[in-house]
Structures are given as C-alpha cells and as structure tokens.
C-alpha cells in the first residue's frame, strides 16, 4: 500500500503546484542557448518595464532543442532563443515553434533576418570578417574569403577548429554560392595555408596573429570588440595590432549570422512570450547589444557603438539564413574531407 500512497501523494502535490501557477504573477519561461551573462541584463530590464517575470534556463542549443522536443506539449518553455539561425531553422522543422503575427516585430526586424511565416525573429547580428596585422599586411592584398586559399597566404592564416558553429556556417554560406566541389577545393587550400593546426577560440586567433604566429585571423567582430574595449590590457594591446577587413564587398557581402528567438508551439504564456521578443527587438534592447556586447543591431536606425562605428559600415551577405541550417552538415563533411581539424 505504501508505494501507492507515495505515488498518490506525489500526484496530489503536483496537482497543487500546477494549479498554484494559475494565480501566480505573470511570467514567461525562456530556454536560451545564449549564455546568462549575455542575456540576463536585458531580461531584467524587461521585467522592470513590464512586470513580467522571466524564468531562465541556458544550455547548448541542440540539447535544449532535444529537451523541448521530448517535453512535447507539456513543455514549460514559452520562448526558445539561440545564437545561430541554423538552430532556429532546425527547431522550426522539428515543429517545436509556432508562427506568430506581430506588426511591431515585422516593422522592426528586416525581412532578411526573420522567418517569412513568423516562426522566428533575428535579434542581433554578428559578422565574421578577416582581421589582419596592420604593419604586416596591406589591405589591398585582401579581397574575399575565397582568396584566402591562394598560395600567397601560405602559412599566414589562423582560424579555429571546424567543430565550431561559426566556421560551419561560414562554410555553409560558401557552399550556397560556390557549390560543394569548389568549396572543398577552397577548404583544401585554406588548410594548406594555416599557420598552425586549429586550436583555441576566436580570441586565441587574434592573439596568435598579434604575437606573430600568423598575419591573418578569421574571427567574429564581437570578440575583437571585446578585446579592444575590455579591461584586459594585454588583450587590448594585442587587438590593437590588427584591423578589420570586410571581405566579398564586391560580391555577396561579408558572412553574418544572427541570434534569434521564436515562440514555442505549446507556449502557455504566449502573450508574454511575444512581448518578450518584441522587447528584445526594441530600440533600447538593440542598442544594448551594440553597446555592451559589440554585436550589430538587426533593427535599422539603431546607432552602433563607437567601437563598431570605427570599422565602418559593410555589405552583409543577404543569403537566406535558413539555408545555413540546411547546408550545415554538408559544410562539416567538406571540412572533414579537407582535413580541417
């Protein structure tokens, strides 16, 4: 009898807990692949402004997606936020997101950075330009990502591992325009031009270039911005030796990716969920991305920070971002075959 009592007890308390949420304060539950430090300050602002409490779990995008999928219609999550368009696309395909209609979002997020049906909306933009050591490389010798595979850059390039999503989506964007075969030839050339086997993160590539191990690094702008503006003197000195080159300006533009969010298919707090995404796309929040995190706002007319402004404006690749998700696995295979560690 005892186990049965226990089960009943558990059920009753679960029922009580559940019904308690009926008259609880307004809230919204967020699964975020963005790390806490990069999202919490904005969530606090949202709560301050609207009185809606935000409950947060952060984690790796794919793991959160698995959690979302297996929790099914009982998932507590209302909003799914990731830092990569490919994952948003995967979430949409897994039927864990729902399309929402919001005039405000349609007005603030340009069409190229949101899903046409409203399954997800881009919130911030990162670019992956070429960085070069100022006194060792003349920017005239640089042109495109494709050109990095030519023999003149032999032993000069630092780039991180192909296990990283930033490189995966860069290569995916190249497969989309150059095709798989040409991209593989390119990847072979690039691997031959690497100054060292890939290791470390984006900042490490910049540091290695500054220290003289290579003269060209490929890295996301916000890492570079944080090194320039952060408190670490050694990192600042290192970063100051490099400058940004925007590749492919005469063609498709520099590779970009977004962080973005969508409302989950079984959201219990749908209104608050939409409110939260609208807030993240608002002027206030958008300038926070730029000022604090050195990302580019998706919303037009928001002033970028001084650090971003000094690199000038650039033409961004306008490839439909969901293509990055489609081509991601092809990109990994291409890099595997090219021996890109």
């Amino acid at each position: 009898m005892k186990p049965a009592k226990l089960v009943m007890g558990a059920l009753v308390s679960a029922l009580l807990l559940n019904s308690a949420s009926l008259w609880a304060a307004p809230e919204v539950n967020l699964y975020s692949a963005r790390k806490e430090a990069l999202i919490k300050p904005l969530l606090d602002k949202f709560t301050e402004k609207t009185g809606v409490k935000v409950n947060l779990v952060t984690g790796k995008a794919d793991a959160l997606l698995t959690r979302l999928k297996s929790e099914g219609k009982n998932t507590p999550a209302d909003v799914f936020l990731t830092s990569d368009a490919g994952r948003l696309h995967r979430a949409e395909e897994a039927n864990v997101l729902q399309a929402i209609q919001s005039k405000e979002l349609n007005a603030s997020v340009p069409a190229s950075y949101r899903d046409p049906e409203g399954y997800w909306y881009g919130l911030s933009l990162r670019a992956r330009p070429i960085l070069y050591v100022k006194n060792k490389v003349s920017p005239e010798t640089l042109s495109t990502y494709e050109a990095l595979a030519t023999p003149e850059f032999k032993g000069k390039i630092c780039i991180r591992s192909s296990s990283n999503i930033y490189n995966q989506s860069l290569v995916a964007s190249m497969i989309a325009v150059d095709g798989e075969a040409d991209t593989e030839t390119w990847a072979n050339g690039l691997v031959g031009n690497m100054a060292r086997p890939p290791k470390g993160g984006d900042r490490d590539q910049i540091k290695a270039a500054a220290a003289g191990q290579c003269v060209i690094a490929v890295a996301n702008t916000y890492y570079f911005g944080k090194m320039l503006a952060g408190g670490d003197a050694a990192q600042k000195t290192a970063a100051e030796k490099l400058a940004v080159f925007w590749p492919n300006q005469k063609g498709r533009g520099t590779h970009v990716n977004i962080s973005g969010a969508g409302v989950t298919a079984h959201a219990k707090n749908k209104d608050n969920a939409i409110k939260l995404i609208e807030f993240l796309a608002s002027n206030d929040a958008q300038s926070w991305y730029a000022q604090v995190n050195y990302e580019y706002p998706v919303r037009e007319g928001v002033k970028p920070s001084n650090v971003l402004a000094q690199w000038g404006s650039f033409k961004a690749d306008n490839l439909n971002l969901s293509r990055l998700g489609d081509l991601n696995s092809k990109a990994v295979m291409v890099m595997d075959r090219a021996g890109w560690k």
Partner: protein
Amino acid sequence: MASSNSDLTQPLSPTTTLSSARLRPRITRSHLFVLFLLTTTSILALPVLTIASFIFEPASDVWHHLASTVLSDYVINSLLLLIGVAVGTLTMGITSAWLTAMYQFPGRRIVEWALLLPLAMPAYIIAYTYTGLLDFAGPLQTALREGFNWQYGDYWFPEVRSLIGAICMLSFVLYPYVYLLARASFLEQSVVTMDAARSLGAGPWKRFFRVALPMARPAIVAGTSLALMETLADYGTVQYFGISTFTTGIFRTWFGLGDQGAAAQLAAMLLGFVLLLILVERYSRRQAQYHQQSTGDSSHQRQPLSKLSGVIASILCTTPIILGFLIPFGLLTQWAMGETMDASFFSLVWNSLSLAFSAALLALTLAIILGYGQRLMPTRAVKTGVRVATLGYAVPGTVIAVGIVIPLAWIDNRIDQWATDMFDHSTGLIFSGSLFILLFAYLVRFLAVALGSVESGLQTIKPSMDDSARSLGFSPFQVLRKIHLPIIRPSLFTAVLLVFVDVLKELPATLILRPFNFNTLAVRAYELASDEQLASAAPAAITIVLTGLIPVILLSRSINRPNAGSSS
C-alpha cells in the same frame, strides 16, 4: 582455509548454516533482493541504454563519411590519450600514495591532504590556465621573445595545446583518484603483513613491488579506471586543444552533422572501449584474491627517512601539487583580481554545495547496497547489471543528459495523460526540470566513482569473516553494519569525497537538466570561460576549488586515522 576459499566462487548464500526448515522463506527473500538489485541497476542504466538504442537507426551516409575520413583519428587519439593518462596518473598517484602512507618525511602531514587539491580543479579550467601561461601569445613566451629578440620560428617551445599537453592536463587533475584509492588501500593493509615481509628479509623495494602493490591492485586498478573513464568523457579539454577524440567526434556528428544515429554509433564504440577496460580489469583481478588477515590491531607506524631520501620524497610529493594546483590556482587568483562578486554568488555556492552533498550521500548509499549486494549474490546477472549501471561515468555529460531527458519526459507525459484521463487535470511535467532529475543524472554519471571505492574496500575483507559472523547468527545487514562498514570507513569517506567534488565540477548535465533560474558554480565558470572571458570566470572557478577544499580537508583528517573505527 581451503574450504572457505572455495566459497569465493559460490554465493554467500544465507542458507549455508541454516536448517532446511527455514530454507524456503530465506530463498524468497534473497530472490526479492536480487530483483531489487536488478531493478535499481536497470533504472540507472536507462540513460545509457536509451543512447545505445539509437544504434538501431539505419546506418546513414554520415557513418560512411566518418569511417572514410575522421574515424581513425578518433580511435588513435583516444587510445593515445588513454595510455598517456594511465601512465601519468599511475606514476604520480602510486608514488605519492606509497610515500605518504609508509614513510615519515618533511612536510608529509601537509602533502597528505594537499595532494587531493587538484581534484577540485575542473580539467577544462586547468587547460585554460596553462594555455594562458604557456601559449605562444602567453606571458612566458612573449618574455622569451622580447628578452632574446626572437621571432616566431626562431626557437623551440613545447606546444601546450597538443595531445601531450592534453595528457598532462588530464593527468594533473586525475591522479588523485589513484592516489586516494591506493593510499586507502595501503593504509588498510595490515601492518602485520608488512612486518612479516620485513622479517623475511624483503627490502623496501621488494616489499613494495611484491607485497604492497599486488595487495593494493584492486584499489589501484579501480582508481586508474576512474581516471580513464573520466578521460574518455572529457570534452572541454580536448575540444579546446583541438584534438579529435570520440567525445569531440560525438558532438560534431550529433550537433554539426545533425545525425543522432551516427553519433550514437560513435558513443557505442566509446562504450566498447569502456567495456574492454572493464574486462581487462576483471580478468587481471580474477587470478588472485587478496584479503587482509587482521585489521587495525596495531597502530600504523611510518618509517622515518634519511635526510636526503626525505628531501627527495618531499619533492616527489610536492610536484603534483604544484603542477595540478598551485600554478593554475595562482593564475586564476591573478585573473580574479579586479573582478567583482555579487550577492548571487552565495546562492551559487549554496546550490553547488547542497547538490553535491545530497548526490554524494545518495551515491554512497547506492554503492554500498550494490557493492554488498554483489558480495552476497555474485550471480552473473547481478554483476552484469552493476557494470552496466556504472557505464554512465565514461559517457560525456551532454550525452547522458539527452539519454535522461528522453525517457523521463516520456514518463512525465504518460503520467500527465493518465491524470488527464482519470481526473481531468493535467499534472504537467513532474520529473523534467526538477532537482530530482539532476540528482538522478549525477547518480548515473558518478555511481562508478563511489562503487569503485566501496568495492575495493570490501575486497580487502576476507569472505571467511562474513561466514564466521553469519555462523554466529548475524544477519547480512548486521554483518554489513557491524563489520564491513567500520573496517572500510576510509573507503567510504573516499567515495563521498570523490562524488562530492565531481558533482561540484559537473557541467554539461547540470546545464541542460536544471530547473529554471537555477545556477551552480560550474555553470557560471563554464559559461564565462567558454565565452573566452577567462578573467570573469576566475572567481567562480576559484570558488569551486575553495568549496571543494572544505570536504577535502575534513575527510582527509578521517582518512588519516588508519583503520578508524575498527576498535568500536
């Protein structure tokens, strides 16, 4: 003697000394016990089996792609890593355990517990700190270049972020497993045995290699296999160093190539490695059984060393502490300067501490039940069940987490469906997103640690002791409580300590399974470190280490009392 030895292969059946009239109910009870053991192990094995079941997804092109490109790298690198870490942890662990257990030398009392300090250092954190120090762009090489006016390529310097580097990093933080278990075993070894060896003319080296080492072998093998399983599960270090191993391969295949089936096939190969390890271990142990004759009736005397030998011993025992703790801790402290800690820090510490402590106690309880259960009922089914239940230790945390989420969310949804049908009320998710699921994950991941320790403790107790106690009318439970547990107390403390520190450092499963708004120190440290904000990560990393210190010191005191409790 001979008859009790032959009993080794037989279950210590409760019926041996009892009249046939009481046979029937006893058998039923032992059947129930076996059933209980098997149920427990099956529940614990559920996540690993869930992952393994993906193997039955049809083999995809991705698998052929892997086999023709990167698979050989995964196998070779993982093997080299295993061999390297085995050599590293054995050398450091056994040397320091033997010296501190047997000899008196300057600073012994301090190094005895200080040798445990690297345990609290997460492997990925030590990898970050050494890279920061020794990398091409780091302060040391920069100073060299500036001092001698060298350029890139003018000089040779060992590359930290290499396979050798990864072997060093992992050995620096994993040798305490070998040290702890080997030391506990050296201390549990009866003094009488050593005295006998000495009186027979065996010198210190001979006593070590011919007597102590073979007797400590179960403990050493247990410690090493823990270190190796942790090596196989490591993701942070190898990923940062750019080494392709099974773990990085699994992540890449699952998340980069989006192929769950091929990733699971890789995970299954990884489990194959582990099974091989376990089989080798079992086989090597099968040939001999070592039990101590008596316990704790004479006090443990350490032999004083000459001045020179004393200094050498001190150096040998301090080196691992310097490499695995002082250098990285010093760097972290330097990075943490100027970083601020807010009030939320206390809740992080509390969350980490309470979780780690509950998980450690639960793991200990389960380890005792399973370890003793195996001793009572050493049937093939029970043994296999226990082995499978501990496989989780070698599986990367993220993979385990996924293996937990899928079945438990399924159960949750079933219960919800049932409640909706019966009472017209939805229960929502009961287990998913609760602390319960987190504790379950820790048990799946770290039961092997506790069990390894408890088992190696139990193995030093002669089965004839069980028999005598039982013939005196003790119940199996009384034997455990009054005889085994007091004797193996050092091993029990070791088990609690290891699980505690492991949970404190645990990251990937915590990240995915935790409830809303719930953070731990490891989560905080990792999120910042992986975002390449090492300085901001330093306070949390330091706190993990400091928090880990408290139990390390408390428990090492208990370990210092050899054969504690045997007189009670």
